[in-house]
């Protein structure tokens, strides 16, 4: 009897908490609902008060405007290029380095690894002035290269992948060595396929992070054609054009790829993020 009563009371607190949580979850999604529906309204309906909670007439003209009056297609391509090349370079370089830190013996290994790890928390934005001067010296202002390489320099990938390499027994590498395989062959053909889940998590996390990166891309891509999608659509906001539906259409274009990635790769996020925290 007593136990039953206790249980019912416990459930009550729990139910109230969950009702609040669901309510806020829906409320939290409302701005996105407002974004999508506003982008489908015409320029007068979008600012009408009281508002149409659901668009009465739907139009795609704002999207056509974004792609015709602005180099939005170019911005999208730039974003894809920057995110993809950065991510591939991160995977190649950091898997090599992580393999070395995990499996090879060389002088100064621990010291260099400690330096790498110590840099993890430092945001590159605080060093934006000297970083920009370096990019200037390399002639990389307004070029995608200027956006890509500073992001490849971060050690997060090394840190994430080293855990996966550590989990592989050394005997596997030694067996390959005895069979006469070179170090690079062993790394590429034997060890890499085993850490695929780690590579997958790193790919998704890094791609999204670069896609959503803003300040550095804003600084490097100054002329209209070298902007990335995030920087480009944010510049619509400062536009004198008073049509908010058009600005919301731009924002939707930038948001949709990430929504799709999240829906298809949700598992990788929950895993990848948790790995970062667990190791920490």
């Amino acid at each position: 009897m007593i136990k039953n009563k206790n249980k019912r009371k416990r459930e009550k607190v729990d139910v109230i908490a969950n009702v609040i949580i669901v309510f806020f979850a829906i409320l939290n999604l409302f701005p996105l609902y407002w974004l999508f529906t506003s982008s489908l309204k015409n320029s007068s309906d979008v600012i009408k008060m009281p508002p149409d909670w659901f668009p009465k007439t739907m139009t795609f003209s704002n999207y056509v405007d974004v792609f015709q009056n602005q180099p939005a297609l170019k911005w999208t391509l730039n974003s894809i290029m920057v995110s993809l090349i950065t991510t591939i370079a991160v995977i190649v370089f950091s898997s090599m380095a992580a393999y070395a830190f995990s499996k090879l013996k060389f002088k100064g290994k621990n010291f260099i690894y400690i330096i790498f790890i110590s840099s993890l928390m430092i945001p590159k934005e605080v060093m934006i002035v000297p970083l920009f001067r370096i990019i200037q010296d390399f002639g990389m202002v307004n070029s995608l290269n200027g956006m890509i390489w500073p992001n490849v320099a971060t050690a997060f990938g090394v840190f994430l992948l080293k855990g996966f390499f550590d989990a592989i027994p050394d005997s596997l590498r030694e067996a390959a060595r005895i069979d006469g395989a070179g170090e690079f062959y062993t790394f590429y053909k034997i060890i890499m396929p085993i850490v695929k889940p780690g590579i997958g998590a790193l790919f998704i996390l890094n791609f999204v992070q670069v896609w959503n990166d803003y300040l550095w891309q804003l600084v490097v891509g100054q002329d209209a054609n070298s902007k990335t999608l995030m920087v480009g659509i944010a510049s619509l906001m400062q536009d004198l054009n008073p049509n908010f539906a058009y600005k919301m259409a731009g924002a939707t274009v930038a948001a949709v790829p990430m929504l799709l990635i999240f829906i298809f790769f949700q598992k990788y996020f929950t895993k990848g993020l948790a790995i970062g925290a667990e190791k920490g």
Partner: protein
Amino acid sequence: MKFNKHVLKENLTGYMFIAPQLILFLVFLVYPIIEGIRLSLYRINYTNEVFVGFENYEKLFQNPVFIKATFNTVFFVICIVALTVIFALFVSAAIFDKNAKYVSFIRGAYYIPVMVSMVVMSMIWSFLLNPANGLIPYIAQQMEMSTINFLGNPKTVLPVIIFVTFATNVGQAIILYIASMIGVPKELFEAAEVDGASRMTIIFKILIPLVKPTTIYIIIMNIIAVLKIFVVIQLLTGGGPNNSSNTLMWFLYNNAFKFNQLGIASAVGVIMFLITLVLSVPQLRAMFKKE
């Protein structure tokens, strides 16, 4: 002789494997830090650099805008981090042991704003809060509130920025907490339940202490993320009205790329660098303990 050759070769292979990462690391991370410290000690006019010692730092601490920006940044950090940790703990503790579909719905709902990024979310909020034709001022007007221009009023601008940043980013903390709470062995809860402990007791006495490492990680990551708060300032307020929402990163950016005060901007960067370095010490210590 043969042994030495072998060691040499093994060393070389190691260096070859880390070389690409190490070179980029030195060029784009280590060198900028050293160069940033050097620049902060110079007065810079285009190509002309004059060594001035700590003059840039002295100027900063006499500049009321910098003081305001520092104060705002610290205020944002405290409020946003506290809100994030409390709310994320509340959500995760209430849902982590429910069925998987429900958990992934809630997690998704809170994480989607993180995915679509601060840029897109700031644009939406800027539209929602627009005093001329935004939804929120309209509702405020219907409710006959005294203020409808929330971003134009120095009293309301900080809470609005805190709320927008918190609402956009809390999903990250929720994902981390849920992952960590699901990992807690169920026997611990069952044992406590048998002893007649209520859910609240279990949460406060068992669950929250057990996820403490996650809490520390979330706190540090969020402090550093809020410290460099920029996008929401640029897109919602531009630091205004009258610098009342200025922050360190916004101040740095403007000095570097609008006012061409590279020495001053570098000094702000060095100060922020030192803060992040100090903040990351506990996290790094925990990491090395595990190594």
